């Protein structure tokens, strides 16, 4: 009988399993984020969960933490079937979670953040005193030092993350989930984090580490589960597997991204930047003296883990962010601030920009497709026959042509941007930016969220544009994409360019080292 079978398994498992998930499914609208997922996490281990962006890792862990409720499936904590309808139940079951985007109150002190929601009594004083003592112990034991009276907004990202871990430990969590914890950390901060995690493991805590970085998996985990497109494809003992196997499991097929292209015939230098420095509103230096040059007819790929200054670089070049340093276009110095600085003047000079985040910046989701194809070019003379009137018919005519040439589906210029799929939205943006034959095309994450067909199409378009003599600056966190498209590759790390390589003289390992800040 199924019942006895289950019971038996439970008995054998109960002794050493911290978490067992059985048949978890979750759909958001028509998107199946998790499909019948089962996983067993042994107590006192570090268990990695890997998968590409959108594989469903975060959703699964949010279900475990009660942030979402599953459509189907069962959760066993320490061998006991447990209902986790909300975060409180998860906390009560001994589960703690460190989210990718921290859930801290910025203008509270560390202590206040730690006790929030786990106060001992109606008055704060005793809780604060107890937390202060506990923090001191934890700091000694696990290298988790943070000034308990500092305001969170004054702490570095690495320290803020420690506060999140402290929060979980204060709640006596036995099982700690970390969602992409190193995405925002410097390499030394990441190493520190891993030391902390190993220390916690030695104390008998169970740690679930979600990441897409295989190196981390190999370094710190005991077991690793691989997810792909909402499904759990395999679980391996880390010592018995290797990055190549894991990578294959993650991607699912052994295809290397290949794009049909002829060798580049670079022409004269088009864009040159020297000594770009950006300090953000929190006083953090995002760009620390970046210099680069791009020639006509070549693609310069910028590789790097998200958050290492690539976004700021794009914004500076596109005229969206003021910076120190200088940018030249065909030898002519461009304004770096002031009235003549801005995206409009940059566009006028022939610098087009496909932004990284098309939902936030690249498109107005509530605008019709035709309104979006004029976006940023709404000052064009051909759309503005008189100072008073915008020629909407001309814009629509232009849109229909673009939709046809870029194979946007459905080719309906009255559809709102939000009504298109991710790949087709991106095609609308690309059509708008590419069809003016810009001198320079800045493009960030061109294929994020697109399906295979759209990705291939977009890659081909970028190659074509290059062959027409445009200088292309490609920023992508997908190393495959960088390797497949670029004629030269620069790696960014912590606001600097770590080095430049030619694609046929390098490989993913070398680039990966550079991306991790190692030369």
């Amino acid at each position: 009988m199924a019942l006895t079978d289950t019971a038996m398994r439970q008995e054998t498992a109960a002794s050493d399993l911290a978490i067992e998930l059985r048949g978890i499914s979750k759909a958001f609208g028509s998107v199946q984020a998790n499909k019948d997922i089962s996983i067993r996490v042994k107590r006192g281990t570090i268990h990695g969960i890997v998968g590409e962006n959108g594989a469903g890792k975060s959703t699964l862990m949010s279900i475990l933490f009660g942030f979402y409720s599953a459509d189907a499936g069962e959760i066993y904590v320490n061998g006991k079937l447990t209902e986790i309808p909300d975060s409180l139940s998860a906390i009560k079951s001994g589960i703690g979670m460190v989210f990718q985007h921290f859930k801290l109150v910025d203008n509270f002190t560390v202590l206040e953040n730690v006790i929030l929601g786990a106060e001992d009594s109606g008055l704060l004083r005793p809780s604060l005193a107890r937390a202060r003592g506990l923090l001191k112990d934890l700091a000694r034991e696990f290298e988790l030092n943070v000034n308990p009276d500092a305001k969170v907004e004054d702490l570095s990202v690495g320290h803020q993350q420690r506060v999140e871990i402290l929060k979980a430990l204060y709640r006596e969590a036995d099982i700690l989930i970390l969602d992409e914890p190193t995405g925002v950390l410097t390499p030394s901060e990441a190493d520190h984090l891993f030391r902390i995690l190993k220390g916690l493991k030695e104390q008998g805590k169970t740690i679930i580490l979600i990441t897409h970085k295989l190196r981390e998996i190999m370094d710190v985990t005991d077991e690793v589960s691989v997810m792909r497109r909402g499904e759990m494809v395999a679980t391996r003992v880390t010592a018995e597997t290797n990055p190549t196997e894991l990578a294959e499991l993650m991607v699912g097929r052994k295809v290397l991204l290949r794009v049909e292209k002829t060798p580049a015939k670079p022409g004269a230098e088009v864009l040159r930047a020297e000594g770009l420095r950006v300090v953000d509103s929190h006083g953090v230096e995002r760009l620390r003296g970046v210099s680069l040059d791009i020639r006509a007819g070549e693609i310069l790929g910028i590789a790097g883990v998200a958050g290492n200054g690539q976004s700021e670089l794009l914004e500076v070049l596109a005229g969206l962010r003021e910076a120190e340093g200088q940018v030249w276009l065909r030898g002519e110095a461009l304004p770096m601030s002031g009235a003549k600085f801005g995206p409009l003047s940059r566009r006028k000079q022939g610098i087009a920009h496909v932004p990284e985040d098309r939902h936030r910046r690249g498109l107005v989701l509530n605008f019709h497709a035709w309104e979006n194809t004029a976006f940023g070019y709404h000052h064009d003379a051909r759309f503005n026959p008189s100072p008073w009137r915008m020629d909407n018919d001309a814009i629509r005519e232009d849109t229909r042509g673009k939709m046809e040439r870029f194979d946007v589906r459905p080719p309906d210029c009255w559809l709102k941007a939000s009504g298109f799929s991710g790949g087709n939205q991106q095609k609308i943006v690309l059509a708008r930016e590419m069809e003016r034959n810009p001198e320079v095309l800045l493009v960030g994450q061109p294929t994020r969220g697109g399906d295979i067909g759209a990705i291939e199409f977009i890659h081909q378009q970028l190659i074509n544009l290059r062959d027409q003599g445009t200088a292309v600056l490609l920023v992508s966190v997908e190393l495959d994409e960088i390797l497949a498209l670029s004629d030269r590759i620069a790696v960014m790390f912590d606001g600097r360019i770590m080095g430049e390589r030619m694609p046929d003289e390098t490989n993913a390992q070398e680039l990966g080292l550079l991306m991790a800040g190692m030369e």
Partner: protein
Amino acid sequence: MSTKARIPHWADVTLVPLVSIALAFVISAVLIWAIGESPWDAVKMMVEGAFGSSYGWGYTLYYATNFIFTGLAVSVAFQARLFNIGGEGQAALGGLGVALVCLYIPWPHWSVALVAASIGAAVFGAAWAFIPGYLQAKRGSHIVITTIMFNFIAASVLGYILVNILRPTGSMDPASPRFAPEIALPKLHEMLALVGIPFSRVPPVNISLLIAVGMCFVVWYLLWRTRLGYQIRAFGESEPAAEYAGISPVRITIYVMLISGGLAGMMAVNSVMGEQQRLVLNAVEGAGFIGIAVALMGRNHPFGVVLAALLFGFLYQGGAELALWTAIPRELIVVIQALVILFTGALDNMVRIPIARAFAAVRAR
């Protein structure tokens, strides 16, 4: 996972406001019933009072004219996601503009005076909206709070000017002198007489009605046919996207507030020049706030605003009749207005979600 429930566009612009107003009416009917009157008789009396005679129509249209101006003012600002709650103060200052233009310049003919007064009203209203707009754009001061504060400051400024400067010597009334009779605006009955239609001579409805309707077309054209309108709408939809497209948030915020304040100010052409023929304290009488209800009801579209303004014109005229003949005070209309604002503006989701479900159910079939 979007919080906005998906509803076809046509239903969004018709069903949602209609259900909201129906809810507001039902609750008001209960209130009328609770104070011992018959809701049915009340409705009959209101319709009769507002539409049953050219007298009623005249007042309805007079009120509607005010509400079109203030409703447009709020709508334009809403298009840029700015909540201009200061229509009251801007209209008050617009009145000052009208009064100064009409009192201190001897106009040869009402038509010239009308043009000048419209400009005066718009300039003064826009100037009053400029400061909150500037502070929002440049200093990030919350525009809702600053425009509220400016309503009160406007009341004080106007009080001071009326009492100490404009009041004729010897008068106890805090009001300006009367404008010259030559610049009295033609009333609707005079205009209709030209084409042989008889109309009541009493109501103050006048040629400003045409200006109001004209402004609807102007605003519609501005928003959907010009580059500035395109930029306003883009900014309203997404500020980061607008920035990316080179649309300056500072400039758009200030422009929008100038336009919005100007429209609110122009209301004074109707109320000060058209009706009172002089500037009195509190000439706006809450029309600035009704603009909020009108804009919400009219879904921030100029043509929707006309319909919503007519509805509120009807409510005000009908409500006045009701107060005259029954024990139901005029303030009942304020209750209805509040409920309309509540349902169309704040309890939007409560109305939308069931409608969206209904559509989803129909589609699933």
